[in-house]
């Protein structure tokens, strides 16, 4: 079932649980309640928010993701349940023992899919023929030619113009990309853990300080979906800079979770597509089924009403 995405940003909000419902109390506004089991992602972007312990206990028990953001509105941390999958120890062992060729094949599939998705995003915005699909066909096991980086060099100037530079701390387009990446990556990390995998043990990413290497591997094919949303925002907003202080910008990026994408041969909202992708990664690493279920289209539309009133 598609669960809800909830963002809390009203200063001084108090969260508690009563009768298994999340109770949201904001200053001078009527009390709101939501069934805990309907919540998929809770993002708290309010420095003055206060909680009862039951909020975390109930949300984690229900398998929801809880994200806390820093002063720049970017997710700073999240909570994941420790006991996430009924055969997780067995999965962990199989994941550790997965051979180098299996891991390289998986990385190949992820890079190839990312290049195809980047090509689809460029096609959607009517860029010139970009050759990314052809590049996707040339990816070899483990991507020894680093076509992923070559693709990026071709992709970014075609999407955001040749003066654009990806930057993890800049403002505007980069800030919007960073926000979108951070929330989707967090949802992926949760899905990876819920599939019974170790998030820190990647197939390609190996950074010693990164606890979510595997989520970052799986994240690659999903990045172009964020790029797509940000590009659309730049078109919708014209000259207005993309500022994360603006709640409408954050809401537009969060609404990605409800966008329908083609994944495998099914159409699913992104939040469910992420779970299907993580489950297929678990099968590929531990059960020998190499077919990864990854996005195959730009977002196809959002028929789920996105409400901006609380």
């Amino acid at each position, binding site marked *: 079932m*598609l669960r809800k995405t909830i963002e809390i*940003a009203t200063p001084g909000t108090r969260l508690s649980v009563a009768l298994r419902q999340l109770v949201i109390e904001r200053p001078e506004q009527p009390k709101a309640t939501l069934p805990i089991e309907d919540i998929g992602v809770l993002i708290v972007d309010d420095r003055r928010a206060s909680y009862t312990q039951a909020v975390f206990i109930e949300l984690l028990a229900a398998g929801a993701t809880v994200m806390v953001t820093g002063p720049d509105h970017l997710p700073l941390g999240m909570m994941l349940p420790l006991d996430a999958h009924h055969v997780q120890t067995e999965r962990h062992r199989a994941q550790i023992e997965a051979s180098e060729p299996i891991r390289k094949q998986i990385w190949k599939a992820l890079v190839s899919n990312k290049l195809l998705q980047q090509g689809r995003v460029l096609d959607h915005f009517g860029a010139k023929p970009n050759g990314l699909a052809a590049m996707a066909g040339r990816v070899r096991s483990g991507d020894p030619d680093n076509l992923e980086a070559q693709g990026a060099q071709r992709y970014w100037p075609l999407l955001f113009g040749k003066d654009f530079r990806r930057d993890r701390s800049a403002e505007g387009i980069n800030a919007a990309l960073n926000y979108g990446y951070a929330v989707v990556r967090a949802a992926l990390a949760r899905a990876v853990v819920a599939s019974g995998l170790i998030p820190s043990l990647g197939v390609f990413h190996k950074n010693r300080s990164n606890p979510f290497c595997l989520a970052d591997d799986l994240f690659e094919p999903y990045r172009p979906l964020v790029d797509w949303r940000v590009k659309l925002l730049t078109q919708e907003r014209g000259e207005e800079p993309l500022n994360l202080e603006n709640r409408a910008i954050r809401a537009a990026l969060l609404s990605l*979770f409800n966008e329908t994408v083609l994944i495998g041969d099914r*159409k699913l*909202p992104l939040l469910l597509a992420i779970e299907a992708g993580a489950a297929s990664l678990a099968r590929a690493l531990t059960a020998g089924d190499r077919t990864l279920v990854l996005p195959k289209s730009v977002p196809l539309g959002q*028929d789920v009403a*996105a*409400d901006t009133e609380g």
Partner: protein
Amino acid sequence: MARKLRAPDLPWGWRSMWVIAMFDLPTDTPAARKAYARFRKNLLEDGFTMMQYSIYTRHCASMENADAHIARMGQKLPPAGEVRFLAITDRQFARIKVFWGKKRQKGAPAPSQMELF
């Protein structure tokens, strides 16, 4: 022949459902009152909210989800009395006309899959 619409192809207003629980429960004995109170608490814990006395509603993301909630409440029925569950689409529910005295009132807005507080 009309194409059968699958879940994501259906507009949200036709896909998301409201379950309406209506009940008449005896309150003549202390045991009956206790059973009634327990059932009402179960409804609230399952995410139903009171629309009127003895009428509770819950928004569900899909028909399957609505069925799941009806089945779950079906396990928790009180021993005596009548309980009815009706599931209708959000589109149908939105056409509710609410009057307070003779004055027309606005119905509550439909919940969405993304909410900002």
